[in-house]
């Protein structure tokens, strides 16, 4: 039996009114009064993106300096082409494949200690920075890092590269 509840009085002002409260319902296993409530339906997390390509430092395998082909010219954009006396591309090959999703964070090259925020990615493993020949020294260093996480992701072994020869 559930709790019994009786109304004293009547909606009509007289007579007998009987009410049953909390009666019936499906029979179930008796639970201790201090036992937990049933598990809530948790909002399931949607499928997580794979961020393994971002983990760790970005090490470089090779670097070359090349002239811009038609595609690279479009990447570099008209403003740069107009400004640069001798536009070049520094292409760095990474030791591991680069991520295949577009995110806020991206890999950037660090040339001679200077971050190149507008570094392009060409899959699977090429980072490209556009520079004017005049900014390169004879011997240069290249490293890479994830934007915003330079301290923890910067290449442990920067690569030294020569400005010459310039590849086609």
């Amino acid at each position, binding site marked *: *039996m*559930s*709790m*019994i*509840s*009786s*109304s*004293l*009085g*009547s*909606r009509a002002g*007289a007579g*007998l009114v009987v*009410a049953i*409260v*909390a*009666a019936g*319902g*499906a*029979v*179930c296993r*008796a*639970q201790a*009064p*201090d*036992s*937990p*409530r*049933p598990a*809530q339906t*948790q*909002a399931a*997390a*949607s*499928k*997580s993106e794979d*961020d*393994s390509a971002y983990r760790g430092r970005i090490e470089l395998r090779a670097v070359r300096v090349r002239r811009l082909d038609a*595609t690279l010219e*479009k*990447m*570099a*954009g*008209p*403003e*740069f082409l107009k400004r640069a006396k001798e536009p070049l591309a520094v292409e760095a090959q990474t030791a591991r494949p680069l991520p295949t999703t*577009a*995110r*806020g*964070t991206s890999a*950037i090259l660090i040339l001679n200690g200077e971050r190149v*925020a*507008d570094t*392009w990615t060409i*899959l699977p493993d090429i980072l490209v920075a556009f520079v004017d020949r005049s900014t390169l020294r004879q011997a240069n260093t290249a490293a890479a890092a*994830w*934007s*915003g996480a330079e301290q*923890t*992701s910067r290449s442990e072994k920067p690569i030294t590269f020569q400005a010459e020869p310039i590849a086609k």
Partner: protein
Amino acid sequence: MARTRAGTAFSAVVIACIVIGAGGCRRSPPSAVGEPGAYAVDAGGRPITQLEAGSSLHIGGRSLKPSTMYEFRLAIGDQPAQALDRAVSFARSSSDRDGNVPPFVLWYQAGVVGCSDRPKPDGRPYTFRSFDEAEKALAGQTLTVSIHEVDRDPTGRAQPMTLKARQALVLSRLPIARRTSPAVFVSDAKGCLLNSQLSNDGDMYVSGRNFRPGEAVELSVVANQRSWFVNDRIQDLTGVGAVAAPERVQADADGRFTVRVWDRANQRRGAYDVVAHRLDMRGARPLFISPDDIISYLAETGFLLYLRYPVGGPTMDLAGRMLGLSPYFEFADSFAETNDPVRGAVDPTYVPVGHLGGTYAAYYVVAHKDVAGWVASNALVDVSGGIEIHPVKAGCINGTDVIIWNPPLALGNYDVVVDFGMMPAASAATYMTDAQYNDTLDFLDGADQIGFIVAKDPYELGAFAVGEDSYTQDDFFATLGSRANVDLRAVVRYPATMAGAGTPVAPGQHPLFVIEHGNHSSCNTGGFDFNPAYDALHTGCPDREQNHMGYMGLLQRLASHGIIAVSIDAYDLTGNVPQLIAERSDLILKHIELWSHMNNTATFTGYPDFFAGRFAGHVDMTTISVSGHSRGGEASVGAYVRNAMSASPFAIGSVSSIAPVDGLSFVLPDVPYFVILPAADGDVCPLSGQRIYDRAGSSLAPVDSTTKSGIYVYGANHNFFNTVWAGDGDDGAAGRDDFIPAADQQRLGEAFLSAFTRVHVKNESVYEDLLRGKLKFPSFAGRKAFAIRHEKTNRKLENGSGAGASAAAPATATSVASPSVHETQALRVGWSGGSGTVTYTLSGAQRDASTFEVLSFRVAQTNAMTNPAGDQDFMVELTGGGNTKATFSSQFGRVPRPYNHVAWCTPPLQNVMTTIRIPLHSFIMNKAGVTLDNLDAVRIRFSNPGQGEMYVDDLEFSR
């Protein structure tokens, strides 16, 4: 079904009881619809058919007269208590608009009062020292609950017990049975129930009954929750440093045990529950609540470890709301006017010395008064439509939560008082409120700070009809920085004369809000993104990703509050492209140029008027706010900075960012800034927005003379703030702590961004307190959004350099540069014993705090192992005029454990300093004598926990 009981024909009638469904039980709470009456549930909200001796009686009411005060009386036997002198217990509670009263505790533990060392009311009938005693006296008896309508007092001034309770409306009966279910409770070493104990005064014991003989039980003492669900996490706190150290015990042949679970030395002030994890039961899962576990208690607080009154003052949180997620209840300082009932709950972990406790307590909601106001008059005038009265747990001043104000609420500022009456009552009949606030006995949520504010949830839509439109022109800009052929495209929501596409703009001028999305895929068709030919020119994609359509909820909200809200499409700057922050910044400014033109075609004549004059004269170009997400979030900052360098800059008056990147290290000058830092960001893992926040104002003289705000949101990821991105997956770690479903995260983001924007473009200053961490609304209730706040009006006492700060052993203080995600100096403060201090000696103008409102600082736990498993806490003292007054920091804000940010960047435990603001009134109340206009020092004193390490920065007096 609401029913009005007109006529009140309560003449003698025949009572008949019909029994249906004997022996049944239901898993879900009873429906609120049904015949009028009371219903009984157990601590888990399940309907019960009998009360097991020793259990608390939870009673609810339904289908009563709406918005009416009722008295619930409990009697032993078949007859109702005709008067309170015959009642074993009673309570007064208001019905809501539908005539329902949610379940509340009418009788704690069936009268078992145990052996608490607090003064307790003895001599009442049906009070018992032990469960065995209660069982012997009660088993086989019947409980009768009667419900009586109470006379209404519209003035709120009448002492509630002078208001007459009418004859019984309904009776409900419930048999009492022997307890056969397992029970667990905090006890003394002899197994006698305790409900509270002075912290660190004695070891804590737990006793069990009715377990299976010989069964193995793991006992954990855990932070109090309002309820417990299967699969909730069990986090024991009884080890050294609050690390988990659950106690395993085996029940004796009678199914009983008593075991020490918490050494006095390791105890920490707080409200706790006890979990008996039944290891032998099928399905028992380590560290998570299992169906057969026993918990003391669910709806009640299990046990209090209290401290004597702090020097900080007698006010405490009393008002709160239920939550849909753990811990299922939170204290709150703000409520929405609709659908947000105010609950009162007493979990006093600071207790006045010699507090008498009480048998019953009355809950008053009164108009807010400051300290001087309360000193001038302590009379209580309730404004909530009725004064609730509820029984108090024995040996304790620990009340369960009850509704003290049913919606609709009235906009305004309020305090809550728990009135224990003139003296502890020995019986229901002798309880009498004195309708006065007595600071030695009663509890107050108010005075030095507002108890709670009733305001509109910033997530709620405003009064304006919302017009809808968009504009687009491919390749409008031949060049934009390094990019060529950049589109001009956006979606617009605006205040209108009627809702719908292309409707007329509402009369008047309206502020302009512009938001820019961040980087994501740009093309939904395969083979485009990451194809260099496409990446370079963005041509040919047949199905562009609609990144800018991900903020429609925000646009809708802002437009409904009278703001022209524009989300721009940075399509050509999105996808597998470089950061392009300068271009993105300029694109925001270009769209503002367009809006200037559409407002006044004489300006920026190179643009089209996409809407043929519809917005002419309707755009308030003097009030502009810019915002962005991810790369767009840095671009909004960049837009402000680059605009400021212009010869004729736009009037951008506020800037906000969601999870911004920080590649160009912009330094914001004196402009209000707001940033959202998602603790589980899987993209901008270094939480780079913190650095933008830290640098903002750093170039000003004086340094930091600007207003900046932020929230650090546990469980939030990068993408869910954008509805389009949310559909592409979760960038946060799977199974992370404090996970927030996408829709909830969007609601949170929209509420905060809407509030920030409205503060600055609509002058809705009430939401400044939201940004200060003072207000919580239903749209994000229960979410862990920690406020970061710096006021333009401030007097800095210490900036992390360590100048003026001195540590006394066993505390140390060292200035560190750019800790964790920060770009600022901070003091790393460690302590290894309960007597260490760090003192900031004040000099010159620092000594005068009389024109400021709070002592503010930002603080974070480091990753040191000496920190507790939960929140860190310490005392803050102010000394002046030869007097010192102190308060615990935890009364004003949390210093939580570092969030475990499982993502690609390292380390996973990031330390984000969030802000604690202590009202200066806290240091002068009770005639403390601290001279705010001539202070000597601020001191941090480490007492409990006795060890730890944290970063502290920007100690300042502030508005």
